[in-house]
């Protein structure tokens, strides 16, 4: 059964190729169906493998499948190989699982789009790349997937490329990611220079056995983190993610919520031993950046009016939580939160997508409201997602977030408080969104003329292809927490499952104040969540207090615009200066020589006056000079 692993990436790839070749003929909806089937079946295979792994004893849950030797040069021997172990399978599971759901959803969402087949072509390619990323046996194969997903995200963000904003957003995403890639490449260079291999086993083994100097480990860790920041939209590189919302909503759900953006977390977990071997401060850096990002994004989300922008910023914020976890050594918690987040954030995104679809591509929440009446399923599922992210027990988000905060507390109180504050804000802005979209009075009538405006202006519920995934996911969003319940050691199923990966580097908080009083913290978390929700209701539903949505928050602390102005202003000037330098100085020198020769030629021509007597004079002059030399040689 394990040997069928090759099927997992192969199936989506086949789907991709088939659509490349016959996409036009297949057309709608068969292209979509094909893609969905491919992804789903690959999910089935993964599930099968998962169960097989479960059946194996822990130490045997680690298999390498080598296809062929990819880049063998001297000491560098990189194979095209897959690593099957709990972590990769976990990732593969929810990638393919959620992936197939979103495929299904997309069939409905992309209905009627001229480039329907192309969309699914990209989606399948993305799934393939993502699987390469998570299944990669060495950094390079992961990097292959890493870049693959980046490229697909570029394609998909600028899917409606005739819209300049979409095109720009795609480019921005790619280039920003490249900055991260630079970090990841440098990390690989360091690893190879130090260990002489790029395989996770090799590197991690070296790290665990102390074969990796702390300084090198730190270097690798930090560089990997740079890479992660790029992919997982952390400060300072998060800027591309909000813009990425230009893409179709399924894309946002799949790539920019569930899967790709979490690959940074995955990578750091993979390399946990290296982080562990690095100087402690590197972990603190990661945790701090995570926490700050979380808070930063949350504050921004408070003031957004675009339904998807809110979710985008909340994604950034949640990713910040995961990095906080990583930095605090809570790898399991990180993965845990990644999974649950995948559930409810995908759910939320698709819900918003359904809303947008129903509203004829209206995204401004100020023009919505009271939609629960017209699209009930969407509303209910969305509300479930909201509860999950807000951290209301027993929904999935509660457990994972709480786990993270627990470790954070044990690690660093300050970061814990930042986390709590973020949680509060999260509850606040999510509630705000729910209220603005589904409750209150309907505000869509009075904008009939401007909005998408085709046919009737009353929103409608989406087709089953879209609602079905919502239902499934909401189910997961409710129950997702079971993976890892804090009640007893036994209930830490996920932790046991991931044992072989993280046992070495997972922080041990046994006996710390935090773990002793985790029930207290748990309670606190619940209180916080409720407080946030209450506050939000007070403001937006009851209108008790005035909404605090300062313009600066709406503008994301001016961060993005500042960068834009730097790039567009001084940056552009500098580049132009270089170009001008090349044209005038470097090339100018070359051309200058030519003109000099011409000038000299003209000068000499004047000597060539055509007058015999001056010729004689020149000959004589030459003679005199020459004779002078000879005379000197003779006399001296």
């Amino acid at each position, binding site marked *: 059964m394990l040997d069928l692993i090759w099927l997992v990436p192969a199936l989506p790839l086949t789907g991709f190729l088939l659509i490349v070749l016959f996409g036009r003929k297949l057309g709608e909806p068969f292209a979509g169906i094909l893609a969905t089937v491919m992804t789903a079946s690959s999910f089935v295979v993964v599930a099968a493998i998962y169960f097989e792994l479960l059946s194996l004893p822990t130490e045997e849950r680690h298999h390498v499948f080598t296809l062929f030797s990819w880049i063998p*040069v*001297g000491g*560098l021997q990189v194979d095209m190989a897959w690593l099957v172990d709990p972590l990769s399978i976990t990732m593969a599971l929810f990638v393919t699982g959620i992936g197939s759901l979103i495929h299904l959803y997309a069939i409905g969402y992309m209905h009627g789009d001229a480039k329907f087949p192309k969309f699914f072509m990209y989606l399948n390619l993305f799934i393939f790349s993502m699987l390469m990323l998570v299944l990669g046996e060495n950094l390079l194969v992961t990097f292959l997937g890493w870049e693959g997903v980046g490229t697909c995200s570029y394609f998909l963000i600028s899917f409606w490329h005739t819209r300049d904003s979409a095109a720009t957003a795609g480019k921005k995403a*790619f280039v920003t990611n490249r900055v991260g890639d630079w970090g990841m490449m440098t990390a*690989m260079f360091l690893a190879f*220079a130090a260990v002489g291999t790029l395989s996770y086993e090799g590197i991690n083994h070296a790290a665990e056995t102390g074969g990796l100097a702390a300084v090198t480990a730190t270097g690798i860790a930090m560089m990997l983190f740079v890479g992660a920041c790029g992919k997982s939209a952390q400060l300072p590189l998060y800027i591309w993610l909000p813009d990425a919302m230009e893409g179709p909503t399924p894309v946002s759900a799949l790539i920019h919520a569930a899967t790709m953006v979490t690959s940074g977390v995955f990578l750091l977990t993979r390399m946990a031993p290296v982080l562990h071997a690095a100087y402690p401060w590197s972990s603190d850096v990661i945790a701090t950046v995570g926490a700050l990002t979380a808070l930063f994004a949350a504050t921004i989300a408070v003031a957004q009016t675009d339904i998807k922008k809110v979710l985008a910023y909340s994604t950034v914020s949640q990713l910040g939580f995961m990095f906080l976890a990583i930095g605090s050594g809570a790898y399991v918690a990180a993965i845990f939160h990644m999974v649950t987040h995948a559930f409810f954030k995908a759910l939320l995104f698709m819900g918003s997508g359904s809303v947008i679809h129903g509203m004829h591509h209206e995204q401004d929440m100020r023009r919505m409201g009271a939609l629960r009446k017209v699209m009930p399923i969407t509303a209910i599922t969305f509300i479930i997602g909201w509860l999950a992210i807000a951290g209301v027990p027993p929904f999935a988000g509660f457990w994972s977030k709480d786990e993270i905060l627990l470790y954070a507390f044990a690690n660093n109180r300050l970061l814990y408080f930042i986390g709590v504050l973020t949680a509060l804000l999260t509850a606040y802005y999510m509630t705000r969104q729910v209220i603005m979209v589904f409750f209150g009075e309907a505000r869509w009538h009075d904008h009939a003329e401007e909005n998408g405006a085709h046919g009737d202006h009353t929103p409608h519920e989406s087709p089953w292809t879209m609602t079905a995934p919502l239902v499934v996911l909401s189910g997961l969003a409710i129950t997702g927490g079971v993976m890892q319940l804090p009640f007893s050691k036994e209930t830490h199923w996920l932790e046991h499952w991931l044992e072989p990966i993280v046992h070495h580097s997972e922080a041990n908080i046994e006996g710390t104040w935090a773990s002793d009083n985790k029930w207290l913290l748990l309670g606190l978390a619940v209180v916080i969540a409720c407080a946030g929700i209450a506050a939000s209701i007070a403001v937006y539903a009851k209108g008790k207090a005035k909404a605090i949505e300062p313009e600066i928050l709406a503008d994301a602390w001016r961060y993005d615009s500042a960068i834009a102005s730097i790039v567009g202003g001084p940056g552009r000037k500098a580049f132009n200066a270089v170009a001008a330098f090349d044209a005038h100085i470097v090339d100018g020198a070359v051309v200058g020589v030519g003109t000099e020769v011409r000038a000299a030629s003209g000068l000499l021509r004047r000597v060539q006056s055509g007058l015999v007597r001056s010729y004689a004079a020149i000959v004589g002059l030459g003679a005199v000079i020459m004779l002078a030399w000879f005379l000197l040689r003779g006399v001296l």
Partner: protein
Amino acid sequence: MLSSIFASAEAGEAMASFPILSALILLPLIGAIIVTLLSNRRPEYVKLTAALISVGTGAMSLWMLAKFNTHDGGFQFVSQHSWIDAWGISWHLGVDGISLFLVVLTGILFPLVILGVDPHHDEKRYLAWLLLLEAGVMGSFLSLDLFLFFIFFEIVLVPMYFLIGGWGYDKRIYAATKFFLYTMFGSAFMLVGIVATAALARRDLGYLTFDLVKIAEHASFATNTGRWLFLSFAIAFAVKVPIFPLHTWLPDAHTQAPTGGSVILAGVLLKMGTYGFLRFGLYLFPAAAVWAKPVLLTLATIGIIYGAIAATMQTDLKRLVAYSSVAHLGFIVLGTFAITSQSLTGGVMQMVNHGLSTGALFLLVGMIYERRHTRVIAELKGIQAVAPIFAAAFMVVMLSSIGVPGLNGFVGEFLILIGSFETARWWTVVAATGVILAALYLLWAYQRVFHGEPDEANSTFKEITLREGTLLLVFIGLIGFTGIFPKPMLSRIEPSVDKLIEHVEKHSDYKAPMHEGGHSTDSHSSTEEGE
């Protein structure tokens, strides 16, 4: 070492009963003459002949590739005949892993250009020049005699000069002249260097010879002499590559040259410089090359960043691609002078990769020009909406040029960088940022040209034709294949590279970094199980 070379020579003889390398040079040469003599009345025959000859050459090169002995790092198919014995010059040809794929690339590119791109007038002359050019390029990649190399290196200028000047665009004559004189200026020093090398080697060898192998193996130069000689060669190659700041002939030449010319120019001509650095820099003057390392690494790094930045700001699409070449070749030079197994192998591979991807890019730009009669980015818009397949092709080629894994560009670039990182850490870290810039300038250009709503000038943009499609398919196929499965290439390149590194280590105080298993043995074992 020498004995091994002759051994391989015999092996080569055994494999190739007839002198295939000489044939590779002479066939196009003869072809050029035939084409010139053909009558103008039946142009289609002219084209046919040229095509057949170039295809034949390409086939021979592939045959040679097939017959190439993977595990032998030495020169193969060696053929040596005395030529100008008065000056100890011999017709000495040979191919090893370093030149192998350059020869094959030449063999492939020329037929593609001849079949795929039409000149718009005087086709006969155009084809004749192209064939002559092919002969020259082949010659310079195959020569193992300094003199022989020089004359091929030099003769190439003439056909290229005519191609640019005769079939180029508005500023063609300026560009052609600049190209000719600039390159000639560089080789002026090399000529003196070559003679000096031979004259000085005579003191060790006892007889005058221009034979590369003999000199490299048996002659030793005083430290400073070696450096001066290396310098004289380096100038020529630096101009040819071109290395910042000697690059300014390239944008003009590339931009003004006809599409076919640009493809060849980018595809193989520039490689004569980088190849020269390997063959006549590292191999001939190891100590001096090691001494010059820092300077060249710095220039290469500057070139990478500088070229990329300059490219970003170009308003002419073709010029942009030209500047991207400056950046890419910077990588190759970086790899060459980092002198590690990976970086050198990557460098050699990147020569081919750049030939493919940039060549293809020039083809695509040429097609755009065919359709729109402009290369100005500002005048192009939204082409993807009207010609999606064309756009897709452009995208793939572009991604390979950006260096996205899974495509050829990445493998070379990555090998170069990871190899260089060990011996030239900081240069590499800086150079790696070039990867970001590459994405920037290409994607920006792509967005401006292909994205957005097409204005009415571009709304009639013709979708790719069958002929163009097949032409590009070959390129894309190679791009994809080498990206996914580079091993056949690497395993042939590496033995020669390792041999070269050993040579450098033997003749200088340089020590290449070793990993467990080290380069040579490990790789060989791997190649074994590879076959």
